[in-house]
């Protein structure tokens, strides 16, 4: 393979990949420490907790990593504010490169489902598919719910000054259900769509390498490529393949994350009957 041939199209900037890597690592730590505490009545949960120094230490790690995640969210919001084109505010917000939902996404969803059953031609996706936009915004909603309830639970004394103590009972259940939803969504749906479906199998390298195959993208996201060709921007965003060693590292990180996620998900499912809620 000639490394100088530009066969790939740039999809994520280095900073966006750093955000994803940060989220991936912190999310896995939060999942592991949270499950270690939830499953402390089982040997699986206790062993998981030992990785972080035990039951109490898992709580400490959970709290500090949670605060770091919230800082990451704040930084990401600043990043968005910086990235918005304030002179063309509306087109920046609702243009094809934006991650905000548009009416086309609803149309794409229905057409895509119809394509599953062979009833319609597949929709011509632009840069971001509706499922990717959902994943992106789910992180916002999840981190706000988990962050607020997590802070209330972490700093109970302070929390009980601004609300009655029984609010902590509510916060605990909201935190739990939202965390279970987030983990199940990431470990089942996000991993499958991003990594294991035939189109991306064995792994979508886009978030690590920053680029995707031009040929594959031309077929999966024809509207994006057509737009770039029409505006003459395509050549400017073409890049060459990463070096073999780099790709190997990407695969190791990606597969390690999938293995960790599946271990947590399957372990939790197997031990659900043995814990008291």
């Amino acid at each position, binding site marked *: 393979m000639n490394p100088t041939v530009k066969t790939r199209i740039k999809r994520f900037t280095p900073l966006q990949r750093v955000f994803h890597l940060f989220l991936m690592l912190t999310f896995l730590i939060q999942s592991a420490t949270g499950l270690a505490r939830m499953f402390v009545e089982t040997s699986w949960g206790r062993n998981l907790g030992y990785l972080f120094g035990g039951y109490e230490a898992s709580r400490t790690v959970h709290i500090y990593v949670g605060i770091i995640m919230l800082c990451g969210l704040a930084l990401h919001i600043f990043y968005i504010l910086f990235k918005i084109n304030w002179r063309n505010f509306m087109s920046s917000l609702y243009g094809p490169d934006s991650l905000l939902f548009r009416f086309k996404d609803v149309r794409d969803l229905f057409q895509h*489902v119809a*394509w*599953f059953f062979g009833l319609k031609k597949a929709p011509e996706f632009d840069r971001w598919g509706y499922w990717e936009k959902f994943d992106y915004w789910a992180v916002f909603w999840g981190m706000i719910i988990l962050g607020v309830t997590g802070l209330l639970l972490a700093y109970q004394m302070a929390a009980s000054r601004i609300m009655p103590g029984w609010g902590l009972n509510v916060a605990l*259940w909201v935190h739990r*259900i939202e965390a279970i*939803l987030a983990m199940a969504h990431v470990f*089942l749906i996000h991993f499958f769509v991003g990594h294991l479906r*035939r*189109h991306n199998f064995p792994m979508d390298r886009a978030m690590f390498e920053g680029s995707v*195959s031009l040929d594959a993208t031309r077929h999966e996201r024809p509207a994006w490529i057509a737009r770039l060709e029409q505006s003459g921007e395509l050549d400017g965003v073409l890049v060459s393949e990463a070096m073999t060693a780099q790709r190997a590292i990407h695969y190791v990180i990606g597969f390690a994350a999938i293995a960790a996620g599946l271990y947590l998900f399957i372990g939790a499912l197997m031990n659900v009957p043995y814990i008291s809620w």
Partner: protein
Amino acid sequence: MDRIRSFQLWLAGVLLAGLILSGSTVSAQEEVASAVRRYKAYEASTGYYEEYEVLPRRQRPLIGVPNIRAGIFPYSPTVAKVRSRAHLADSHQGIRFYKGRQCADCHPAAATDIHTTRANLTCRQCHGDEPIASINYYWSPMNPIRRHAYVCAKCHEGASASYAAYVVHPPNPAMASTFKEFPVLAYSFWIMVAIAVGTFVLFLPHTILWGIREIFIKKKTKENKTIEPDSQNAD
């Protein structure tokens, strides 16, 4: 005038900063200067624990007690007796064979909360020694007027009355009866469950169908070269 105005602003700023920086005293802190000392002083007077109460978590025969089940009627006559005794100095007074029973024989659900299963607390560490007073008995340490200082602050230093409003033995949020007992918990629980179920009802079949559909797409060839599977426009 400007100087007076700037002085007023400065004074207001100092007062505001003072209010923010000086935290208000928590009532329990006045009574319980040291949680450890208070705990020891209180516990020293209560005698000793039964052996079964201080064994490690997995060896305590408290959780999943057989033959104690709530039937169609919510309370057995014996339990009803206890439930109507919320103001007695000895809440278990007159209950037959009381000495031979363990707490979870009659209160199985109360032995499955977080304090019991995770913090490893025994019943008596909060409820005290015999006779166990009803929680609303005036002199009971569990009485809401002093619970925060006499019970919660043993472990949670600085616990306030508001903090002690935490429900240590919460009802199962999924049960219909919780809408009456603890409506905020029940509504929050079901709203969150609806969001979670809604997400999976939408995305789980979507993902499965997508995965299956991609298995059956044809590979397109271009100039005798096989290219990556076309997941979108094939067929």
